[in-house]
């Protein structure tokens, strides 16, 4: 009897692990999509309303979902505290703080950090160009993430279940 419960436990936890690992691919796609929508909103605040960055970040953070809302709110807070030399520094710090809570890849992060350096330090026209570039880069990343999801998500989930099954069988 105990053996049965033990087996169930192994299968469940192994499947769970597979689910989590596989799920990250889907999460990455969703997060990139959310980032794109969020930066689009930020762009509107900057280009059309000339809203200063601290306010712009806070305002957008209220309209979007987790985890990008937390990222933007944190950036807005750091800017209000005036501890950093540039907006890019404040944004980079927020990204660093939230690294564990985000499911985006290293290369996605790099794109964001590079974009951060251009924030707020030039005129409206240049900001517009930078946003355009960011959004097209994120679009490409979304495509890559989608491909990775197709390849890997199912595989990890199945692998999880099957290895759990295999271990359980070995024990029995």
């Amino acid at each position, binding site marked *: 009897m105990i053996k049965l419960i033990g087996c169930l436990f192994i299968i469940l936890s192994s499947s769970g692990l597979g689910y989590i690992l596989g799920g990250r691919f889907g999460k990455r796609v969703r997060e990139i999509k959310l980032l794109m929508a969020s930066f689009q909103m930020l762009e509107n605040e*900057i280009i059309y309303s*000339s*809203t*200063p*960055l*601290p306010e*712009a970040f806070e305002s957008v953070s209220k309209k979007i979902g987790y985890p990008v809302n937390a990222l933007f709110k944190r950036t807005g807070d750091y*800017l209000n505290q*005036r501890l950093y*030399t*540039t*907006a890019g520094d*404040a944004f980079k710090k927020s990204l660093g703080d939230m690294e564990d809570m985000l499911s985006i890849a290293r290369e996605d992060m790099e794109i964001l950090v590079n974009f951060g350096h251009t*924030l*707020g*330090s*030039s*005129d*409206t026209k240049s*900001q517009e160009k930078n946003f355009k570039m960011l959004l097209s880069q994120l679009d490409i990343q979304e495509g890559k993430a989608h491909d990775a999801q197709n390849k890997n998500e199912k595989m990890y989930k199945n692998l999880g279940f099957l290895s759990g099954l295999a271990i359980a069988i070995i024990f029995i």
Partner: protein
Amino acid sequence: MDGMRGNKIVKVLKDEILTSISPRIGEIIMSAPIEYINKLEEIRIRLGKPLMINCGRSDYMLSPKGRIPGSIKDAYIVSKDDCERTIQLLSNYSVYSLEEELKCGYITLQGGHRVGIAGKGIIEGGKIKALKNISGFNIRIARQVIGAADSVMKYIMKKDDIYNTIIISPPQCGKTTLLRDMIRQISSGNEKAGIKGLKVSLVDERSEVAGCYLGIPQNDVGIRTDILDACPKSAGLIMMIRSMSPQVLATDEIGSIDDIKAIYEAMNAGIRMVTTIHGDGIDDVLKRPYIDDVIKNRIFERIIILSSKHGPGTIEDVIDGRDLKSIID
């Protein structure tokens, strides 16, 4: 009294000014001797040059510890990092949001303080499109003096009305401070003295009189005052005559022919004028084109001459514009 003023100015510096400039420079200013801080009028930040403060008519360099150095080699030299941090903090990390202000060359901070900006102008079509390579800042501390006009109000008031008044003053003699307080008293009136307030329209081309920040005047310019902020004088004066039905029109530093045309239009509409002009006295002003007509045609019934003989804001003379005779007590 000085101690109280000292605390107030330290608070103003901390809350309204130092949060918008390079923290390193902020530290130095806060360490400066209190006698200088009390009289602080301008902070001058110039890339590659010593940090300086203007107190009254003298300017002083500051050392890295906030002391007054014996020579230039002990002075704190402003770095590129200082300038970059300052523009980031001034603009709230959003240089794009200051595009319009940068074209005019100045930003107004909360509290009405003006920050003039020096840099390389990017010209397009003969006009300034943007300011790049920012190389310097001039922070002028706004100080309203409530009661600055107390001694002259009796010369300019009539029953429920005022005389057309012009203030002639050399630079740095307090003419804007005097104008501001005159407007305040005309607009708010004085219940106790039975003086009815009048509707005042103020065209504040350089945001110096009312010091508007995000649309809110940082100085008290009276309860019946409408303000056109950062608007060219001549156009602004005409606009307000036609839309705000003022009883009194006020503006700082008239001089061009368009300004004079607007004054004549105000006269025709029965509106009173209160304004200022640069000059040492009537003779100086009479040498200028267009303005000399205004004096000769006796448009202004009251002419106030300022100097800095006993400190800024010294009332040298009050003259009846109709016969050019002095009427000061």
